[in-house]
């Protein structure tokens, strides 16, 4: 519902931005994608801390789900950003600070997911993943600061991103807010879906164990 409203507003309601033309409309989905991707990665760290602290599998599964869904949106941010950059800046990619930061995040959490895939069967996997999730989150502020400085010291590399100051029309703000809300809901929904499959996986493991125990016990009699 919200999504439909957001789409309606993006394509019909909001006025076209003067400088960039129609392509600027990517903005309304691009930014919410970024927001939910960051929210997902933040959630990874929080659930990591909770897992190490409380030791409940629920937190581990939540962290995994958040990382995966966050990764999907992070990928979308990079793709849509690239598509937006081509007509406006004339290139698919520049080493602008925000782009670089996002790319690094993508690589970081890609590594996290690879670790999860590799450590899945290990009984330590959950703890290792929690630790790496926390370490990655600690890295994020340093990444942001250093990458930003890296680029501002080199002003040769173009343009800061438009939009932040470009929202002259109040309708643009409304549209962005609606899109934000829509994506937050979408994110939560995907997160729940993924989380549910992980919980089911855990249930299956428990049942398999019970079955193996019951069969072994039956042999003893």
């Amino acid at each position, binding site marked *: 519902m919200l999504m439909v409203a957001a789409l309606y507003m993006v394509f019909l309601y909001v006025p076209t931005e003067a400088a960039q033309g129609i392509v600027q409309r990517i903005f309304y989905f691009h930014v919410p994608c970024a927001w939910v991707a960051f929210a997902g990665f933040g959630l990874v760290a929080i659930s990591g801390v909770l897992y*190490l602290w409380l030791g409940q599998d629920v937190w581990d599964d939540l962290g995994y789900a958040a990382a995966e869904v966050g990764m999907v949106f992070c990928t979308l941010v990079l793709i849509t950003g690239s598509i937006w950059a081509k007509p406006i800046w004339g290139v698919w990619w520049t080493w602008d600070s925000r782009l670089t930061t996002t790319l*690094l995040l993508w*690589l*970081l959490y*890609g*590594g*996290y997911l*690879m*670790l999860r895939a*590799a*450590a899945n069967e*290990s*009984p*330590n*996997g959950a*703890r*290792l993943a*929690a*630790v*790496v999730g*926390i*370490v*990655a989150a*600690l*890295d994020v502020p*340093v*990444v942001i*600061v*250093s*990458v930003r*400085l*890296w680029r501002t*010291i080199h002003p040769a590399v173009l343009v800061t991103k438009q939009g932040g100051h470009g929202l002259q029309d109040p309708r643009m703000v409304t549209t962005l807010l609606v899109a934000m809300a829509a994506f937050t809901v979408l994110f939560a929904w995907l997160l729940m879906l993924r989380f549910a499959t992980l919980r089911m996986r855990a249930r299956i493991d428990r049942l398999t164990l019970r079955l193996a125990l019951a069969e072994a016990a039956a042999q003893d009699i």
Partner: protein
Amino acid sequence: MTQFRAILGKDLRLEIRSGESTIALIALSLLILVVIVFALSQAGARGTEAGAGALWIAMLFSGMLGAVRALSSERDNGTIYALLVSPVDRTTIYFAKLTAAVVFMAIAEVAAVVLMVLFFNLNFDFGLLRMLPILALGVIGFGALATVLSAVSGHTRMGDLILPVLAVPLYVPALIAGVKASAAMLSGAPFTSAAIWIKILIAFDLLFVGAGYLLFEFVIAEN
């Protein structure tokens, strides 16, 4: 403290005895520097900036192989369990392994600096001395990261592959700051001009040494 000294002393002694691994690390640094010279001379890049960049890349890769050895060698021959059942604190193990990693890397690093000066036609002057504290910060940061991550990757299948995938993006901010600060030092700019980069390096070190201190017990345990 005696336990810390015992572990560290043993690691250093083992490393000196095996010898070949230190040589291999230096050889690797040499190779990386040579390859970078080939790659960059095409683009016409020369001097301090390129030299500093090459040096830090060499550090990253030789560190990836060298820094993790302190811990992975224990895992390879099972002695990690001996450390874990002994009354030694996990924290003591962490700091002993971190120190060993830093020492190994520092040795390779000194060799890399000499090679860099030769290959990039720099001078053995005061700039090099001023660069040393920056390199030290970089080595400590990477050592802390590598010690935790090698404990992580040691538990997993394809751990050797996982390690760089995790370590490289995590290390990027320190790499940026380190290259910038080193280049500034080499070109004779005052310390204050690189202050912000040095601050980033210090923040990175504090963050990851601290994180390792708090999280190491979770990655080293088996159950």
